[in-house]
């Protein structure tokens, strides 16, 4: 037993090798969130489609992704797919696996956000002649964003930490770099605690960004910060259930 080494902790706290790993964690999270948002929006819209096929496809995708562990998905993509001749790099595999997984969770959040926009807003947008995509972009999504942001922020916080799973396919993000450094320097506790501190800093900074975003989208509704009256439209829900 060697005890806690403050000098080693301070030394690793500003270690460039680890900081670089933390940077990988950040950009990987941002990229995965972007992919997840695109996939999630598609899946959410397909889930609400009037046609059966897109609805079933989206449901299948969400069911598959949420019903299997992300770790298994990553390993299948990186280690299993080459058996079928599909060879993806570490980064491609991580982006694909994490993105697909994130998209499935975001799909339900985005769908709930869209359903929270009153039916009259769809009517009004259509009545001024907006086609579907214009209506979504100009009228529906900016309003849904208010409802989507809190759970979305929560997901991004989770994602910053979940990217550590990519270490098992040897992606050199923060956790992997910590493990590699430990193999050289044998300061297990100190280095892992430094890694934990980095994660804390990243999630805390995100918390600040998230509060700003929520304030931005809440501005039109007054400074009270009180959520607007949101009626989930029953007809839309029933339509969806069919």
């Amino acid at each position, binding site marked *: 037993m060697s005890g806690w080494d403050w000098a080693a902790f301070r030394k690793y706290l500003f270690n460039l090798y680890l900081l670089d790993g933390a940077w990988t964690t950040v950009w990987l999270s941002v990229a995965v969130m972007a992919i997840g948002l695109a996939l999630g929006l598609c899946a959410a819209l397909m889930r609400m489609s009037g046609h059966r096929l897109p609805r079933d496809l989206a449901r299948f995708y969400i069911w598959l992704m949420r019903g299997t562990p992300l770790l298994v998905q990553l390993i299948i993509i990186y280690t299993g797919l080459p058996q079928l001749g599909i060879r993806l790099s570490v980064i491609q595999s991580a982006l694909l696996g994490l993105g697909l997984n994130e998209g499935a969770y975001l799909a339900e959040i985005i769908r709930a956000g869209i359903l929270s926009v009153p039916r009259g807003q769809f009517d009004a947008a259509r009545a*001024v*002649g907006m086609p579907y995509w*214009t209506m979504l*972009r*100009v009228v529906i999504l900016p309003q849904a964003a208010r409802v989507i942001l809190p759970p979305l922020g929560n997901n991004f916080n989770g994602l910053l930490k979940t990217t550590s799973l990519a270490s098992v396919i040897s992606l050199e993000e923060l956790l992997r770099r910590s493990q590699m450094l430990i193999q050289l320097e044998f300061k297990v506790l100190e280095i892992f605690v430094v890694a934990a501190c980095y994660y804390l800093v990243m999630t805390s900074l995100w918390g600040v960004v998230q509060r700003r975003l929520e304030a931005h989208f809440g501005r*039109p509704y007054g400074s009270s910060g009180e959520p*607007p009256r949101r009626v989930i439209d029953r007809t839309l829900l029933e339509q969806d259930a069919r």
Partner: protein
Amino acid sequence: MPPAEPAVQAQGVHKFYGSLHVLRGIDLEVRRGQVIVVLGPSGSGKSTFLRCLNHLEAIERGSIRICGELIGYRETPAGLVELRDAEVARHRRRIGMVFQQFNLFPHLTALRNIMAGPLHVLRESREAAEAEGRRLLSLVGLPEKAETYPGQLSGGQQQRVAIARALAMRPEVMLFDEPTSALDPEMISEVLEVMTALSKQGMTMIVVTHEMGFARAVANRVVLVDEGRVVEDAAPGDFFTNPQNERTRAFLDKILH
């Protein structure tokens, strides 16, 4: 009067909600510049009919033409075929609509609400859309509310902004779906004044309302819809003093006490 084609021409319009037969063959013709007030008991189908006119609701039989153009469908040898979303959207540009619940976009200022159509549908320049938006805000008597969000406006003010928003698309026809029914009594007149002014400028209007004073003073024709059919269609004088249909008499008895 020139023999121009009618602004609105609805023929034999049928609408079902599942097994519920809401509209049972409505015929209505509105010439340009006319104001039609549509009355009827609740559930008679009058609001549904209005929503069919700009294809917010599909129809099962019949046809609707605005300024001669078939709305929501195209004619084929096999019958009418529903158009794609983008084409329906293009048709809707010519038809303004004002809703009972205003339905202003809450995340946009009053001015931005009015500019939304010109900017994102007509693809006008920001300058042109803003100039037109400010002109329309003055027209409805709210020039100082340009930067105000709907949440900070009274019901009457919101409805006037909603009228301006519809006018910004320079529609041929304006549809009003119970525009004053959600308003406190003291705000009703400010909205009716804007509508009256609009009619004097020659706007073609179809108004579903319970405001009998407005019907008498402004309408060219008053129409009673009951159980999905037009049962009376007359000038306001005849409609209120000498109704032809038994159901019109019963309806008037109820609302005029």
